[in-house]
């Protein structure tokens, strides 16, 4: 469904991504693991064009896009087929929970208000936030905000959702509620790429794991293989460090 080939990205001369290849099939839940600074966030941001990659290409739905010269229109098209969940939620501060979900439907996709609100309420129901439709982000806890952000990302029925450490800004008690929502999304067959430090999630929810370090994919494969018989010494070391 989606593949990335030879993605390279430098910041001011420092190469942060050194030729990343990724293959995503429909329904995959891919956990991206790796030490801090390995380029996980940058990878997701490049894939959604929040960062401009230097080279490489991406095939999405059979259509090829070159990172170095992709048009604004193509970026817009691609973004409408994807969802993005940020580490620090990034809910629209001037919009209520419901408006946060309906905004992209009404403005970007021209769905009529009544229909957008129906979809929005349903999405909020799914993440267990239907009793907070009219709350502003500042009135919600971190876990609640992240659940609204997930509702926002999934409401437009994207083909894939990118998650950048969706739980690392949360207290341990709140982490669970967000992971539960993500698990139910995965169970429904949503395709997801999840940058995470939650090993439990990577092991039990995701079906594939990508281990990154220093801007390269060190090892990738099915979750079982990576956790039970990692081939690379670095992967083993990383898993040992995180107690898995």
């Amino acid at each position: 469904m989606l593949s990335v080939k030879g993605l390279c990205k430098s910041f001011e001369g420092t190469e942060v991504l050194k030729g990343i290849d990724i293959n995503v099939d429909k329904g995959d839940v891919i956990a991206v693991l790796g030490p801090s600074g390995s380029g996980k966030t940058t990878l997701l941001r490049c894939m959604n064009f929040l960062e401009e990659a230097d080279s490489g290409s991406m095939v999405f739905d059979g259509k090829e896009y070159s990172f170095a010269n992709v048009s604004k229109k193509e970026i817009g098209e691609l973004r409408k087929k994807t969802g993005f969940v940020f580490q620090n939620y990034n809910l629209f501060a001037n919009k209520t929970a419901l408006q946060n979900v309906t905004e992209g439907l009404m403005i970007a996709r021209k769905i009529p208000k009544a229909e957008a609100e129906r979809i929005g309420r349903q999405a909020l129901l799914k993440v267990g936030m239907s009793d907070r439709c009219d709350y502003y982000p500042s009135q919600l806890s971190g876990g609640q905000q992240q659940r609204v952000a997930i509702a926002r990302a999934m409401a437009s029925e994207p083909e894939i959702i990118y998650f950048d450490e969706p739980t690392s800004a949360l207290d341990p008690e709140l982490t669970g509620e967000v992971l539960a929502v993500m698990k139910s999304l995965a169970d429904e067959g949503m395709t997801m790429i999840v940058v995470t430090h939650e090993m439990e999630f990577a092991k039990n929810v995701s079906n594939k794991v990508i281990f990154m370090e220093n801007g390269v994919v060190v090892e990738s494969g099915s979750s079982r293989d990576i956790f039970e018989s990692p081939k690379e010494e670095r992967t083993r070391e990383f898993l040992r460090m995180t107690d898995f």
Partner: protein
Amino acid sequence: MENRILEIFMESFPNILLPGLTVTIPLTAVSFIFALIIATVTALVQFADIRILKQIARFYIWVIRGTPLLVQLFVVFYGLPNVGILIDPLPAAVLVFSINEGAYCAETIRAALESVPKGQMEAGLCVGMSWLQTVRRIILPQALRTAFPTLSNSLIAMVKDTSLAANITVTEMFMTTQRIVARTYEPLILYIEVGLIYLIFCTVLTKLQSVGEKRLGYYGRKVR
């Protein structure tokens, strides 16, 4: 003696207040609305980082903030006729006040736009909105809310600055007062009186500002 002063005060009060209501306030209101439009556009082209427009914006702000308002009024009203451009006093005042205030408010709004966290724009793009849609629906509303107190401040300053329009023959409150002084030779009481009326206007605006701030709210956060 006391009686005469009281009499002049009472008698002149409606005469000074009237041009206040019919000239000072409309002049301020109209100029400020134009100023906000100019300021928003000027701030946005800088925020959007459109090369040439940004340079024009910086040049405009540089010139306007670097020269006295009174000089700007004189250039437009007494200077431009030299090149065949004659503008009536009131439109000339509106023009100068709008352009002048626009430069200051542009900086206020630009700073407010830049204070909106970057993630708000990224989230807008990620839900499929365009840059412009995100600015219009998400960034600008938040920025204007942030800018509101400072813009109110500018508005209050502008009410008083309109007295400079007397210099280009606009018969606003201050010029009317000067005329009454010329007739009665009571500068002390009359200038205090006009000052009081400005004070009343500004007090009303200050009240409106705090009502406005409460009404705008802070997205559900309680303001006390």
